[in-house]
């Protein structure tokens, strides 16, 4: 009895469900409940069509390129199905279109030819037909003989082809070594001359970074393979070279202890020993470069280094000009000093030898001005040309003497 009752209640509920909530899937099968379900169904359909019409109406206007695609589909639909089905196909397509232009645009079944401009913006990297892509290929492939190509060839691997206008611009880096060697190149062929001309007109070129989204995915796969392969030998080396590792660690510890002793942290204001070490390395590197430059520039005409000395220099006193009392130079120096009172030249009129740049055995540099020892470091390099000129107004016609170009900058700072 109970069981029967329960069953009855269930049936009742089912009836309520079918009649109460129109979303049930059973009603369509249910012949008895067909009326209420039919009532609800057209409602749902009507809602959808409104939305879609609203959504698709402006879209069709804007997406001119996508139209033929839709038409094609429609034509296909016509051949197979009724007009009602046609509409559904169109709706379906417009739905996918909306999604594909959004953030979920990744795997789209729409072919590249049919892709409109908006979507092309997102996935242009993959599109073989896009202009940008072909341009990139030109840049990389080296098939064209444009002037740009020659330029790229000239710069070689230094300026690797990367294309991203937004990020950064390659500045023509000139190695200090190449810098001077180029002086000796006497002749230039026509191509190089042309390239130079372009270089002069367009001195700044964008760094080219090529987007390779699809290939990146592939690389990820290969990486997973590679890591599993490399993981085993890594373990081996640890086992074999444990002694070596220990030795290295010990050395590292010693070095760090030494660094601690030197207490350079406060000097460089660095966080840890590694940073200090790095700082020291770059400093010594700078010193070596300065020394090299000084030696290279020696007796070379029209080459300058810009020096920045402290605005206040140690004090000097001028011993009377030597030209007047050359015969009594060294022997009677003290006497002459007493006789003619030494002049204290002001900062602006200081002339003569003020000190020296000293290269130590370790490669470090120091500057001694007067009795004060100062540090020397490399200043920021420039990417553009710098000339030293002197205004000469003494002659009949005032002229500007081009003395030479500046090749680097050096900053001298006092030690505290």
């Amino acid at each position, binding site marked *: 009895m109970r069981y029967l009752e329960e069953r009855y209640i269930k049936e009742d509920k089912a009836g309520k469900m079918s009649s109460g909530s129109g979303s049930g899937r059973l009603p369509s099968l249910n012949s008895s409940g067909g009326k209420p379900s039919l009532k609800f169904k057209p409602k749902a359909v009507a809602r959808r069509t409104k939305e879609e019409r609203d959504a698709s109406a402006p879209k069709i206007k804007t997406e001119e390129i996508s139209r033929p695609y839709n038409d094609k589909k429609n034509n296909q639909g016509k051949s197979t199905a009724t007009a009602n089905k046609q509409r559904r196909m169109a709706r379906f397509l417009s739905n996918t279109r909306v999604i594909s232009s959004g953030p979920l645009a990744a795997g789209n079944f729409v072919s590249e030819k049919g892709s409109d401009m908006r979507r092309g913006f997102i996935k242009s990297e993959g599109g073989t037909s896009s202009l940008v892509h072909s341009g990139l290929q030109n840049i990389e492939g080296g098939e064209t003989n444009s002037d740009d190509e020659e330029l790229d060839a000239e710069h070689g691997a230094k300026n690797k082809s990367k294309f991203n206008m937004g990020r950064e611009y390659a500045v*023509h880096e*000139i190695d200090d070594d190449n*810098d001077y060697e*180029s*002086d000796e190149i006497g002749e230039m062929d026509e191509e190089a001359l042309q390239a130079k001309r372009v*270089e*002069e*007109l367009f001195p700044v070129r964008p760094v080219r970074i090529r987007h390779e989204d699809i290939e990146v995915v592939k690389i990820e796969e290969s990486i997973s393979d590679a890591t599993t392969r490399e993981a085993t030998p890594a373990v081996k080396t640890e086992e074999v070279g444990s002694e070596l590792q220990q030795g290295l660690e010990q050395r590292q510890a010693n070095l760090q202890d030494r660094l601690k002793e030197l207490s350079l942290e406060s000097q460089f204001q660095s966080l840890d020993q590694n940073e200090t070490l790095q700082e020291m390395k770059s400093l010594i590197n700078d010193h070596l470069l300065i020394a090299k430059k*000084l030696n290279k*520039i*020696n007796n070379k*005409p029209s*080459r300058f*280094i*810009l*020096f*920045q*000395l*402290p*605005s*206040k220099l*140690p*004090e*000097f*006193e*001028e*011993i009377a*000009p*030597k030209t007047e009392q050359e015969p009594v130079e060294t022997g009677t120096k003290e006497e002459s000093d007493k006789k003619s009172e030494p002049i*204290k030249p002001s900062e602006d009129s*200081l*002339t*003569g*030898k*003020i*000190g*020296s*740049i*000293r*290269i130590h*055995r370790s490669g470090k540099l120091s500057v*001694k*001005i007067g*009795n*004060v*020892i100062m540090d020397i470091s490399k200043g920021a390099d420039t990417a*553009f*040309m*710098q*000339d*030293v*000129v002197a*205004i000469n*107004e003494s002659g009949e016609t*005032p*002229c*500007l*003497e*081009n*003395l030479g170009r500046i090749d680097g900058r050096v900053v001298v700072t006092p030690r505290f």
Partner: protein
Amino acid sequence: MSSENQLFVTDDEDRQPEESIPEEPLRVPEEIHDNEPIEQGDDPVMQEFALNIAGRDELLHVLQYANKAKKIGNRIADHPFIGACRYKPKSCVWELDIPVDDGAFFNKQRAEDNWGKADVQTLRGVGVGNSGQYAGFVSDGQVYLVPVDKVAQLRPFFKYIDKASLDRKQEDAKRNVNPASQKSQVVTMSVKSANDPTQHRLAGALLAHKVAEEEEPTELAWVENTFEHFKESIVEEANSHELKPLGDEKNYEENLL
């Protein structure tokens, strides 16, 4: 003298004796100082470049060509040809004219039609003074420092475009001689006259602009290959003066503070 000379030679082999003579009196105490364990530790001096300051009366300027790559200046022959050079000493305004190469990437017809030839690229910049800047060159192992008066960054200055737009404006003004424009002109005049008595003097950047605009530039001829002459005079001047350092490190630090 001879003993000093020997001392010098052992320490610094590549120095030429004729240069070393004037520096001797200074050099001797320096070397003693260098060998002090406190100062240098176990890091002796291997090579020395003497630092000389000279050329106080030279008017040295540094011109930075912001639109020319450093590479171009590598050889003297590659230096862009300077057609004309103007300088306003009071306002420190530089103007260099560089003839444009009309062989490549140059539309002669358009330049003539629109901008009245425009066959010259004008670089313009303002010189900025800075203390402690020296241009140094190395000669016979000695560094000679010449103080730099001003540093100017030169950038392309499109005077011809300004001129073209000004001309166009004037033409427009001539063409539209309708009452509306005339009326507005009258209004501006009256405003000006009302403001004049209370108007303050131009200050800051406006004044600098006015000074620069009103100043007549000096035409300077661009001369090259004068470096050797310059070098000789500087070296001579540096050698004719002898300096004796005063005080030590502490004195200097106190002086700085």
